[in-house]
């Protein structure tokens, strides 16, 4: 364990940092959780200062998975960055693909055929199911359930992964979307398989909720733990289910209406307390809302080309300019900001990482709580280190 670095630790504006006691007083214990810790979801590190088991200061430390995504994006072509986006948030490669494709399409003014838009919606919603399922499993694992919810979650995840694999060729690193459409056409066979998975998902959610949602221990652990106020959430740029759990109705699918989302009829669930339980339940509810979207998309998907015939695969040289494409990823707003200088490589390739920005308020949520709470609060933020550190 490395000691925390220097103490330039003034409270952030708006945070409820309690004044830290004199460090020479000697009654505080500093625990470095991570980068190798079972429930930091990767190589995240929190330096927690404890008074007993109560957290009086908690500083996240990043960068243990900083693999220079943005630098690499500047040194490769636009197309070559696509497979790298898979590895950002490695649970949701399809939505990352989409956000990146959207940014590039805006940069070069590339239309997308109707069928591809539908396929993108289907894949994005499947990704949402997958991500939220995994999150629920991991969160309950952090609560101390010994593997069972996670196992059930991964059992269902495998079904979606099978879909992804048979469509794109890879379980996790799909690299499926292209500027102006998608790579291969999902046949009728695949769409039928997707329908089967969609129809079976409600049953799984029922079972999963029966397992632990009504569980008294689970409620005691999560209700009232780490409440996030709407005001702080907006100021801190929190997005995604975390923001909506705090009661702010802001879903980019509704606000931006990117792709063909305005055609879909779905509701946006909102939390009231903004606590860990709300964050967990919001994900469950969003999954339940994703099912009708999937159903509608699978029923309405038109025939037609999957790629814009004029779209170019190689040799993309956008004119100098910039664009920002963002979508509602499962974790929040995933955005790509591209600056082109007319060369085949982006001049600046920036990823707006929802997980990193959602972590801004981690300390605020954890102060005054115990280590056990910090673990589940972190779990409910839903981070993936590939995206936090990039």
């Amino acid at each position, binding site marked *: 364990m490395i000691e925390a670095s220097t103490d330039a630790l003034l409270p952030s504006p708006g945070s409820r940092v309690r004044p830290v006691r004199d460090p020479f007083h000697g009654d505080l214990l500093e625990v470095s959780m991570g980068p190798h810790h079972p429930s930091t979801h990767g190589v995240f590190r929190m330096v927690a200062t404890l008074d007993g088991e109560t957290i009086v200061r908690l500083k996240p430390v990043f960068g243990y998975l900083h693999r220079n995504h943005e630098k*690499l994006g500047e040194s490769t072509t636009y197309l070559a960055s696509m497979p790298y986006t898979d590895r950002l948030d490695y649970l949701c490669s399809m939505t990352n693909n989409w956000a990146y494709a959207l940014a590039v399409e805006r940069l070069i003014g590339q239309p997308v055929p109707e069928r591809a838009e539908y396929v993108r919606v289907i894949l994005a919603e499947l990704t949402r199911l997958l991500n939220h399922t995994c999150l629920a499993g991991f969160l309950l694992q952090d609560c101390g359930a010994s593997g069972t919810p996670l*196992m059930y979650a991964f059992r269902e995840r495998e079904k979606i992964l099978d879909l992804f694999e048979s469509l794109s060729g890879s379980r996790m*690193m799909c690299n499926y979307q292209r500027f102006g459409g998608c790579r291969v056409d999902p046949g009728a066979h695949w769409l039928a398989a997707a329908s089967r998975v969609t129809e079976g998902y409600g049953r799984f959610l029922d079972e999963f909720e029966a397992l632990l949602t009504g569980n008294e221990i689970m409620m005691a652990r999560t209700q009232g733990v780490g409440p996030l106020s709407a005001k702080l959430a907006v100021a801190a740029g929190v997005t995604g289910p975390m923001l909506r759990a705090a009661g702010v109705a802001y879903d980019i699918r509704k606000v931006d209406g990117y792709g063909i989302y305005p055609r879909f009829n779905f509701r946006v669930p909102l939390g009231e307390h903004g606590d860990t339980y709300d964050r967990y339940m919001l994900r469950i509810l969003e999954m339940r809302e994703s099912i009708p979207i999937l159903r509608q998309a699978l029923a309405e998907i038109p025939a037609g080309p999957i790629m814009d015939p004029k779209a170019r695969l190689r040799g993309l040289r956008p004119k100098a300019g910039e664009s920002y494409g963002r979508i509602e990823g499962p974790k929040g707003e995933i955005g790509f900001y591209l600056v082109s200088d007319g060369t085949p490589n982006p001049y600046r390739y920036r990823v707006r990482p929802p997980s990193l920005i959602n972590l801004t308020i981690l300390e605020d949520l954890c102060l005054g709580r115990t280590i056990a709470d910090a673990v589940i609060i972190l779990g409910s933020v839903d981070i993936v280190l590939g995206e936090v550190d990039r």
Partner: protein
Amino acid sequence: MEITPEQKDELRRHGILLTSLEELYNWGRSHSVWPLQFGLACCAIEMIATSMARFDIARFGSEVFRPSPRQADLLIVSGTVTKKMAPQVVRLWNQMPEPKYCIAMGACAISGGPFKQGYNVLKGIDRYIPVDVYIPGCPPRPEALLNGLITLQAKISGQSISGPDAPRHLGSADSCEYPVPEFGGHDLEPPKNPDLWQPPAPARAPKP
């Protein structure tokens, strides 16, 4: 009297189990490889998937993912090791008790993989710690990890506990502590462990 493997097979066929201490030792080790619960990046998700119901690494007795390195036998380096993370990985390796094994899972752990040109990415964990099995793939399928585990089990079973081929931990001179790199102003110091990492000379000069 020396017994050849053929004779032993013959005896086994007749129902006579002939087990040496060595075999028993290797059998025990190879069927009880407990991995460290240690995920780095994308491959970690596939590692988790391997321990889940569909693939079930438990069948090989390896589902006991221990969170503390003190109780683990196997370090699965599952993902990109950044330079910021490398000292911790080496430290974890040093904290594990012998006999211990290391699997480099996925391209990043082997060589830095797709991210090897990054400034903060270690170009292969074998620069600092000895790796027993390399599993290429990005990420390797869970089956590929199982295959790597089987390869490792075969490797353990093939070890002799004496003689020049004895595994590292049975040689007395070795301290089994690997130097932990330190953060420097521009890179890790040292950037590699020269005792471990001896790449063959480059096959060719870079293209002009």
